[in-house]
């Protein structure tokens, strides 16, 4: 193969014009030539490629690649990993087209901020530290969720909320009763209350959450109530209204997302 030659830049198209291949709504992956559709993938199959099995293993990889729309596939690399597994690198053109008009994304309704930006926003917008009280309520003794969000150790490569200088974090730990949580939230003058529910029987996490949100509505005038946030692997992110809370975070939520949300809601409304 010869050295890649960059194609001459194409001028931007005016809106509404019939799109050309490079700019239009339909695009293909780009290797070194417009429209070549080239992709590179790697994967492991639980098949042997030792000795005589190598050709068969390559065939298996090529079959998968074809089914993925890579045709014709070039199995560029076949690496045995022990007797039962093989790692493959495959190159080839995909038959699929991307229609950019049909791209749909669920928009986050708050901007994602770095810890620095969160600290700055709180300092400027609140002029005091933002107070977060966190707990596992009910019989759930698994603090893994709340700790992943609150502990400085963090989660998914992001530091927990304790890491943020302008956040005051009070982590009450596990098996906290709802009255105790309300009392501590009042005592700490919490801006936000974070509740995690990890291991629950039946729908205990939903009932616990409703009990918690009702207790807060009862204990606070509606304009003074702290922001209520629940999270855990069994929650549905769209259930906030039904549960009476401000926000539900599902599996995989990172501390940075929570910090950004709190800043958006609390500092944003204070400003």
């Amino acid at each position, binding site marked *: 193969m010869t050295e890649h030659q960059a194609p001459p830049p194409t001028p931007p198209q005016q809106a509404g014009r019939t799109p050309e291949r490079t700019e239009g709504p339909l695009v293909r992956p780009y290797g070194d030539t417009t429209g070549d559709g080239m992709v590179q993938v*790697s*994967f*492991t199959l639980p098949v042997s490629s030792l000795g005589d099995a190598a050709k068969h293993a390559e065939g298996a990889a090529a079959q998968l690649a074809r089914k993925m729309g890579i045709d014709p596939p070039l199995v560029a690399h076949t*690496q045995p*990993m*022990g007797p039962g*597994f093989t*790692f493959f690198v495959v190159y080839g053109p995909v038959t699929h087209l991307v229609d950019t008009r049909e791209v749909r994304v669920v928009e986050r309704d708050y901007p994602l901020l770095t810890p620095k930006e969160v600290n700055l926003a709180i300092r400027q917008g609140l002029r005091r530290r933002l107070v977060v009280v966190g707990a596992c309520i009910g019989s759930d*003794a*698994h*603090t*893994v969720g709340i*700790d*992943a969000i609150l*502990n*400085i*150790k963090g989660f*998914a*490569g992001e*530091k927990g909320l*304790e*890491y943020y200088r302008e956040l005051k974090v009070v*982590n009450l*730990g*596990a098996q906290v009763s709802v009255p105790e949580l309300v009392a501590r939230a009042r005592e700490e003058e919490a801006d936000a209350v974070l509740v995690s529910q*990890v291991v629950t029987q039946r729908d205990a996490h939903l009932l616990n959450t409703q009990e918690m949100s009702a207790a807060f509505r009862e204990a606070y005038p509606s304009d003074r109530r702290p922001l209520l946030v629940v999270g855990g692997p069994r929650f549905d992110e769209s259930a906030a209204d039904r549960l009476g809370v401000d926000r539900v975070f599902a599996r995989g939520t990172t501390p940075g997302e929570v910090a950004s949300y709190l800043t958006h809601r609390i500092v944003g409304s204070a400003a």
Partner: protein
Amino acid sequence: MTVPPPTPPAAPPDSSASAVRRPPAGAQTNRRGKLDLDPATVRRARELARRVGQPVVDLAQRHTTVSVERATLRLAGLEGADPDGTPWVNRLLDACRGDVGLEHGIALPVWDALLRGEAESLAVLAQKASAGSVRFRLPEGRDRDRAHAAARDQVAAGIRRVDERRRERERLVELHGDPDHQPWIYLIVATGDIYEDIPQAQQAAREGADIIAVIRSTGQSLLDYVPEGATREGFAGTYATQENFRLMRAALDESSRELGRYVRLTNYASGLCMPEIAALAGLARLDMMLNDSMYGILFRDINPVRTFVDQRFSRQVHARAGIVINTGEDNYLTTADAVEAAHTVTVSQLLNEYFAKEAGLEDWQLGLGHAFEIDPELPDSFRMELSHALLARELFPDAPLKWMPPTRHMTGDVFRGYLLDAFFTLAGTLTGQGILLVGMMTEAVVTPWLSDRDLALRSVRYVMNAAGNLHEDFVPAPDGFIVQRARQVLGESVDLLERIAAHESPTGLLDAIADGTFGLMRRPADAGRGLDGVAVKSEAYVNPATEILEEQ
């Protein structure tokens, strides 16, 4: 220059066996090493670490904790849990504490009850106590002496089991041999299910791992009990239990026979139960344990006094068991900047060394930690990494340093991650690190796939093979960038230790921890988890385990 043959470590008093069983330490011919560190500054740094650490040791000696006392019961042979999964050691301790408090220790009231004929064994006593049918008292006079002697006999038998495990390790290392390369290759498994971990660990050993670490379930450090039995559910890791330890060690013994080299097993003596987990590790012949003097305080918000008391006991157990500890300095650099905070790593290493030696650990057991965490966008970042790594190497020439891969600056760009990890390995081989935790290109994306581990090991093998003995030729220019930077970090370390020593209260280290010196976390001494499990020892306090461990 070649790596000198490891010298046999000192064995416990009743052990005559000696075997090659230490991870590789640094190889040096020139006493002042490649950095030409000023010996007076190095002495000063150690002297300050001692001065800062001594009051904390005194503090630890004045207190006991629920976990230290439960560990004593475990050494005396009390195992198992009630039908709800609460360990009998917790049941017995809680009942006894309710009657006589924690401050006298568990030994006198418990063995007094046994001698009074309340139960024929610890296990039965624990059952009766949790049913409320036993009253405990603090014995006096001859009763006290008899209870003390009986407790000592039974705990001594447990410590003899630890000694046996140590000799067993020595025999197996002699039989199967140690890795023939440096650094030793350390790989992690973490499925949450011990029965999934076992084939993964055996496969990792086949692929070249010298050391297998089983990551613990996320929540475990904050549990004030050790779960029981073989476990199949965990969060991002597998619970450390006595049975899981036993199963994995047996599996790796099988691998050692298959592969003709002794495959080591690592777990975590950290969190609220570190003394108990240390005891279980000693009883199950684990070979290395994560065991940092400050990690739990800083990163898990565990009470500082609880941590230092538990630390000292667990290190005494590790010393006895011939276990290599791994410290956690790499963690500071995941929260603080690796250039600005480089000296906090050195200070923590010096403190960990002081606390470890005070507890009876020897140089060959000190897997002091540090990490390749400098922002790769910085100019000369690799030169600084070499400088920091070499500083640790030369400050602790006889310790098997634990070299940790990049995490903070790993991104979804796995190709860049692969490159960064190769540079990390190169820095490790160039600076004579002892234990290399293999970096994963997918660090920031997924828990490692089979192929990630395979690619990572390929990269490590390539770098180690291609670099060969390049460390012989790697001699930084005198007064060049690397040497200057190392001196600067050592100087800043001495300054920080002086500031800690200058704190008004005698325990300046606790103040330093409280005001956020390490890893940017502020942790006051009168707060944090596990504080209610701490007691000031009474005049009558007795702990036969500590007595025996301190007799060496």
